């Protein structure tokens, strides 16, 4: 009986250590803007619908998603939509080189330490966090395929319609 209890407990700990981020405020994260030592301040985006996107240059679907995200951001910018892309390349220069060839209009911040994805409990690359106007994470989207575009657009539009 004791043995059984121990095994059940071991299984449970795997689930218990994982806190649920849904409906929680965006966690603090030491991602920095290029050329500064200043951390990104998610609070300054309150009142806007924000998509926080984790990406890296070695991740093909991440790069594939960027033209779509950029176009969506520019289309919905006036309605209060913004994208913050957190780059998790171990060498920031790789990201900077990539962005020189394929620039985006939204804010890109860099975290070479891996602390941000840890705090956001990133499970796949890319990962998109949909944040409402109150600054709460409402849903998380893992991965990217071109067939996801409709889903992402609908999610954003729904959050934008909330006051």
């Amino acid at each position, binding site marked *: 009986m004791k043995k059984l209890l121990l095994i059940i407990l*071991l299984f449970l*700990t795997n689930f218990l250590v994982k806190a649920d981020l849904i409906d929680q405020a965006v966690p603090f994260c030491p991602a920095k803007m290029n050329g500064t030592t200043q951390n990104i301040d998610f609070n300054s985006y309150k009142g806007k619908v924000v998509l926080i996107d984790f990406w890296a240059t*070695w991740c*093909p679907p991440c790069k594939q998603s960027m033209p779509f995200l950029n176009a969506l951001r520019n289309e919905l910018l006036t309605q209060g939509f913004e994208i913050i892309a957190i780059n998790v390349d171990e060498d920031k220069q790789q990201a900077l080189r990539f962005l020189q060839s394929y620039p985006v209009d939204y804010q890109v911040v860099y975290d070479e330490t*891996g602390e941000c*994805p840890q705090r956001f409990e990133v499970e796949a*690359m890319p990962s998109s966090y949909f944040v409402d106007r109150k600054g709460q994470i409402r849903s998380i989207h893992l991965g990217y395929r071109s067939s996801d575009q409709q889903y992402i657009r609908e999610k954003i539009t729904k959050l934008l319609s909330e006051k």
Partner: protein
Amino acid sequence: MNILYFRSFIVFLFFSLQGCSVAPWERGNLAKKNMAITVNSGLSALRDHAFTSKEASQGGYGGAGGGCGCN
């Protein structure tokens, strides 16, 4: 009693190994082309085809991909 503790310890060790995985954001090196099981996927496909024809069995070569774990 000692056997019970020993078995529990083995079970604990087994579950502890779940932490021995590469985090999704740390797979930059794994995603490199030279980390693939088959570096040249075209050549592997050709060899696989030749092997299949000669041996009338399917080869055990891996597919293309860098193993970055991207969706």
